[in-house]
């Protein structure tokens, strides 16, 4: 699928469905008639305009991929944010939003890649990695894939059931719980650290391509630790997000 490097101007989209995930997150489908399609891992800019003309723009990763005009976002609320509380609590099917994209030619995965891939998500950093995992499955790719997903608790996770259902010989899933671990979890709750990364990440000798997405602090910790563990810095791709 050709995806031009030219970024579209603002396009009008219509919210088609909203689905709560938990108390602070939901999955939002937006129908964008002129959407050019997206690659797994890309994001878009979303613009809201208030009645008084005030505008706010935020970037959101896209959980879907491919040529469809329906774009899937998963939004986690930052309580002090300006845009995410609206998207999680207020926006309804039929509401209009403006989007620009797709954006991102670096934090993307293509099904012609055969290298082992290690994905590492912190919180809603799972969203672009979800698109990559879905693309890996849709392509029937035999590239070895592993995902580490760090969440406060199981209830805070996005796409938990879908991820579990995708586990097979080519896709491994490792949960890291930071606040509350379910019964039977292999570790007590703790933040991701060098010991976890050393034991769970695909070994540096296999030269995995690593994608890390999460809040800035999470990404810096993980990327720095991976390089210290012997991963090549230019094979660790990162995407950071802030509070919005």
């Amino acid at each position, binding site marked *: 699928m050709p995806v031009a490097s030219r970024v579209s101007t603002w396009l009008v989209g219509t919210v088609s469905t909203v689905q709560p995930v938990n108390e602070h997150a939901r999955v939002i489908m937006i129908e964008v008639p002129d959407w050019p399609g997206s690659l797994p891992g890309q994001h878009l800019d979303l613009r809201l305009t208030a009645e008084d003309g005030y505008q706010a723009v935020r*970037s959101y990763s896209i959980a879907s991929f491919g040529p469809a005009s329906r774009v899937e976002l998963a939004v986690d609320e930052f309580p002090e944010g300006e845009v995410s509380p609206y998207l999680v609590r207020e926006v309804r099917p039929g509401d209009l939003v403006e989007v*620009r994209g797709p*954006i991102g030619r670096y934090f993307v995965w293509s099904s012609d890649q055969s290298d082992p891939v290690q994905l590492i998500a912190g919180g809603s950093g799972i969203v672009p990695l979800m698109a990559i995992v879905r693309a890996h499955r849709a392509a029937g790719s035999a590239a070895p894939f592993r995902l580490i997903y760090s969440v406060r608790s199981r209830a805070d996770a996005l796409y938990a059931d879908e991820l579990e259902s995708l586990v097979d010989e080519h896709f491994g899933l490792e949960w890291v719980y930071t606040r509350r671990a379910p019964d039977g979890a292999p570790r007590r709750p703790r933040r991701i650290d060098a010991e976890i990364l050393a034991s769970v990440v695909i070994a540096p000798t296999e030269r995995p391509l690593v994608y890390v997405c999460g809040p800035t602090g999470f990404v810096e910790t993980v990327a720095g630790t991976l390089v210290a563990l012997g991963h090549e810095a230019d094979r660790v791709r990162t995407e950071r997000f802030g509070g919005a």
Partner: protein
Amino acid sequence: MTQPEPETGRRVDRLDGNAAGGPLSEIFGVDLTDAIIECRHCARSCPLAEVVVELDPDGLVMRCRGCEHQLLSYVWAGAVRRVRFPGLAGLEISED
């Protein structure tokens, strides 16, 4: 991670070049996230997606992840958009 901006108390997000893709396309017309940039101060080169980007509602600043020098600033608030290139030695853009 969000950090208060001392003068105004506004939030400034310290992110990376992925977040600059949309705004910079307003000026350059293309998605530059995979362009290779070179820092004038320390000569480090890397994909634009990997540089530090400080983003607030009025604009963004790109900094070298190696030496923290400012590479580029883009302010879009107001009637005039202003782009400056204090430390950007070059940009390499590959064809598809």
